[in-house]
């Protein structure tokens, strides 16, 4: 660098000064950093102390919700219909599982789960929404539960819990009435973000009373605060707040009668509704065949689900509230009330020559009844009389009385859905079919055919109102101190005339003479009905020769005792061919049970022997037959996997069967929980 000015020559002293200055600068800088560190520390521990304390606590403390014990459902006498049983279970929380195959493998070894179960758990883990618990197994023994609990540190994501499972002692007999429970769906959780919903073992009502009164029965969850290490090892329990059990729901149902009615329907497809004539309490509300709510509560297998939905007796439909049937002749009491109200003298005689001529159309009667007054027309179920009188008073009066008696109405019951049915009139037909009301419509309606559609529950309400003369409102929840229901807006003698005709039906020269109560001093009054399902020419309409599903429905409404009605009953047997043959005996036996249970049970036991056992035995047998058939029918070319599954299932069922004959319907031995099936059933509701 010759061109540039020579560097400044520094003396030793100058350099020493430089050093001193720079060392002081360095010291100051170090002190400054020290201050920054102290300030940072003060910021973290003072200004942000609250936030970090919270984070530290949430690290330290693990809050586990304890699912509340669900409220019981009991009958009017306090007999349990739905209760809780202690059980040990283990679930997997997908979000917390780090090594799926290892954790599932260890659990499977501990619990002796087979290969299929492992597959199911792995598949469900993959499909689940992360926070949704996947059930590994329910109904563990205490030893298994303890074995998993002590291995928690190596089983990341596993959640063993001691919980309660729902148990319905009467099984299928109460299926449609109380519904069933199941794990909350992802949609439920998204809606409320209530962590209780994703707590393993927590169940919500999915159908029936369980669903509608879920909030009352749910209760409040307890919580367990535990101190845990970063690896999930429990250090100690800090505090436990016990759960608050849900409310017990007391129903108006008489559990004994409910079970009796369900069993008495037997192998048929039908329903029976019994109402207390003094206050409207529903004593029985059965629809058969049904599903076993116990097997739904544990999650239902694909096979079980398929069996239920394939059944032409519709076990998944609550026929008592959602089945719609033409009432047939059971409607005649309403026509009888209407015509009296319109001023027709009940003693006026109509001559039945086997039918009624309207223009060039002939409306047939079931017989040639000769001279008929109101009383005998009810007893004999003479169509000609009701054609004549119905046409005279007109549809509006009939429809009005039908409405007063409860047809076409919905009742305030804690059930998810009821159907209204149809009580047609001129205005309705114009609106619905854009057609004029015709005289033949009036004739058809007068005898309970045509556009009329009612539910068995409505029929039961109707007959309870006829029997009591009061505007009874049906109810399912037991309450005290309700005001006595208002009398019906008809002169009592009109209603009495109808009742006397219904007395004659059973106890006189009527259509249901075979269904008299075998009791001293207690008479059953009623009315049979046979509802056409399809119009057949001539006399073939109710024969055995036609396919089951085209046969007529058999209906019966009744009350007892005739002199001072206490109970009212409605029974509908689908495709039962006649009311007197199929429905009236069941209604009569239900009444018998109310007055003399022992005698009724004796009769039932005899009948069940001929049907192949009680409901549980028959359902198990049916399930096995179904599986065997499905296994045989499965086509290996198109659905090899399905066939394999079905066979495995059938084999398992056989094995279970051989191991423990006779097989009771055990919820513990049922099949894997199946979310798909759950979803379908939710849609089906």
């Amino acid at each position, binding site marked *: 660098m010759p061109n540039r000015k020579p*560097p400044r020559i520094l003396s030793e002293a100058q*350099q020493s000064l*430089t050093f001193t200055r*720079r060392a002081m600068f*360095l010291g100051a800088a*170090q002190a400054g*950093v020290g201050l920054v560190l102290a300030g940072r*520390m003060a910021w973290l521990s003072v200004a942000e*102390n609250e936030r970090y304390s919270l984070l530290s606590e949430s690290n330290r403390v693990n809050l586990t919700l304890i699912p509340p014990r669900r409220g019981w459902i009991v009958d009017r006498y306090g007999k349990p219909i739905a209760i809780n049983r202690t059980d040990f279970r283990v679930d997997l929380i997908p979000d917390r599982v780090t090594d799926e195959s290892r954790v599932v493998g260890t659990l499977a070894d501990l619990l002796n789960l087979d290969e299929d179960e492992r597959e199911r758990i792995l598949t469900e883990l993959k499909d689940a929404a992360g926070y949704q618990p996947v059930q590994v197994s329910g109904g563990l023994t205490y030893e298994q539960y303890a074995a998993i609990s002590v291995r928690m540190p190596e089983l990341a994501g596993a959640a063993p819990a001691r919980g309660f499972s729902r148990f319905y002692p009467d099984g299928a007999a109460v299926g449609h009435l109380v519904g069933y429970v199941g794990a909350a769906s992802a949609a439920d959780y998204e809606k409320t973000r209530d962590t209780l919903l994703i707590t393993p073992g927590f169940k919500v009502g999915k159908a029936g009373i369980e669903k509608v009164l879920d909030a009352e029965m749910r209760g409040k969850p307890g919580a367990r605060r535990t101190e845990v290490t970063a690896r999930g090892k429990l250090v100690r329990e800090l505090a436990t707040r016990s759960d608050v059990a849900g409310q017990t729901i007391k129903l108006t149902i008489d559990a004994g009668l409910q079970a009796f009615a369900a069993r008495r329907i037997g192998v048929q497809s039908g329903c029976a509704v019994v109402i207390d004539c003094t206050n409207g309490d529903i004593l029985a509300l059965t629809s058969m065949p049904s599903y076993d709510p116990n097997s739904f509560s544990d999650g239902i297998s694909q096979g079980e689900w398929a069996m239920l939905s394939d059944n032409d007796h519709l076990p998944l439909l609550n026929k008592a509230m959602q089945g719609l049937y033409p009432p047939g002749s059971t409607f005649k009491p309403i026509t009888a009330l209407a015509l009296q109200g319109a001023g027709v003298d009940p003693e006026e005689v109509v001559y039945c020559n086997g039918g009624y001529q309207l223009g060039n159309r002939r409306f047939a009667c079931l017989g040639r009844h000769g001279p008929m007054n109101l009383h005998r027309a009810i007893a004999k179920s003479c169509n000609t009389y009701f054609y004549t009188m119905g046409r005279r008073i007109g549809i509006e009066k009939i429809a009005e009385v039908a409405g007063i008696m409860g047809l076409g109405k919905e009742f305030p019951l804690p059930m998810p859905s009821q159907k209204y049915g149809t009580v047609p009139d001129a205005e309705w037909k114009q609106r619905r079919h854009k057609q004029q009301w015709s005289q033949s419509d009036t004739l058809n309606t007068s005898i309970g055919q045509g556009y009329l559609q009612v539910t068995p529950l409505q029929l039961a309400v109707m007959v309870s109102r006829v029997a009591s003369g009061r505007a009874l409102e049906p109810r399912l929840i037991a309450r005290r101190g309700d005001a006595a229901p208002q009398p019906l807006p008809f002169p009592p003698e009109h209603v009495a005339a109808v009742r006397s005709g219904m007395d004659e039906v059973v106890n006189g020269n009527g259509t249901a003479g075979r269904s008299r109560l075998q009791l001293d001093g207690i008479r059953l009054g009623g009315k049979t009905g046979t509802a056409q399902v399809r119009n057949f020419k001539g006399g073939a309409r109710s024969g055995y020769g036609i396919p089951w599903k085209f046969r007529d429905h058999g209906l019966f409404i009744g009350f007892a005792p005739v002199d001072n009605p206490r109970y009212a009953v409605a029974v509908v047997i689908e495709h039962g061919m006649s009311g007197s043959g199929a429905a009236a005996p069941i209604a009569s036996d239900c009444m018998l049970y109310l007055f003399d249970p022992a005698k009724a049970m004796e009769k039932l036991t005899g009948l069940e022997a001929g049907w192949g056992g009680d409901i549980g035995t028959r359902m198990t047998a049916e399930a096995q037959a179904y599986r065997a058939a499905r296994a045989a029918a499965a086509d290996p070319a198109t659905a090899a996997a399905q066939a394999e599954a079905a066979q495995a299932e059938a084999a398992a069922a056989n094995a279970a069967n051989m191991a423990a004959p006779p097989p009771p319907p055990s919820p513990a031995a049922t099949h894997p929980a199946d979310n798909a099936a759950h979803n379908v059933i939710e849609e089906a509701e």
Partner: protein
Amino acid sequence: MSGPSFVPAPLAQLPWRLLMLVGFIAIFGLVVLYSAAGGHLKPWAFSQGLRFMVFVGMALVLSRIPEQFWKAAAFPLYIGILVLLILVELLGFVGGGSQRWLDLGIIRIQPSEMMKLAIVLALARFYDLLPVGDIRRWRAIWPPAVAIGVPAFLVMLQPDLGTALMIIAGGLTVMFLAGLPLRLFVGGGAALAVIAPIAFFFLLHDYQRNRVLIFLDPESDPLGAGYHISQSKIAIGSGGIFGKGFLNGSQSHLDYLPEGHTDFVFATMAEEWGLIGGLLLIAAFILVVRWGVTLSQRVDGKFARLVSAGLATTIFFYVAINLMMVMGLAPVVGIPLPLFSFGGSAMMTVMICVGILMGIERSNRPRGRFG
């Protein structure tokens, strides 16, 4: 410093102020390690205490070594340690994986740790030898730059970013104190601002880059790589002013705080002793450093001045980098808190610093009445 006359002279001549500060830090550390082990001497507190006593003895021995020895040994020491560094690198290469130490059976030597000291001694010696007039010449710059660059590069290869940075920082400190033109440092800082992003993308390992990214936003991955910083801040923040109390730290006892006895031991302490404990510890460290820097002002000779200020700053870098890391002000680099963290290497390095500093103080003490 002189004590009452009944104290034996060699004892009275010891720099008690420094020894008491160091002792306070180490004993406080033992208390924290005792708590971190759940209230047990094992596995940490006992062996750490033993180790500390050995190193105190070593420092006292070192304090008897006169300044002249270090002057003479500066270059050979540097070269020897550089050779060891290369050896470690080769061994690591042969062994297939990164290795940082040489196992001599009795003791494990971590040459990169020793290099932090050797670089200060070597550069101090270099500027000591450099004629006064040459300080603004090129020849005052390039040899130290090479002397810093080579070991730093080797350590970076290990890979140990924290130690490499400390070697560079220690070297630069000596260069700065030696009186190199200020514009070099200002310009260097500006150049660093340009180079840093480039280095970030091309020189750093993936995991190192990741650490920097997570440092910038630890909450982005609270359960993964940001876990250390998050949990450490939770521990410090939840301690509050007075702490949760001795043996009551949940973050450390329940294993939420990783490395709670080594690199993150400050967080373990802060959780139980709070802001009060933290400030005391920071103050103690700053006073130790200040002792060294003040010493550099008192002593004669360029070598002694540069060494005492340089070694004090080395201790400072340890503390500052570690504390910034545990408080979320710097990325996670594996620098322990000297004397406080469980482990021998950092304690050894710092106790050697302390020993050399005491030796320099002793060599430069004006001959007093005991002279």
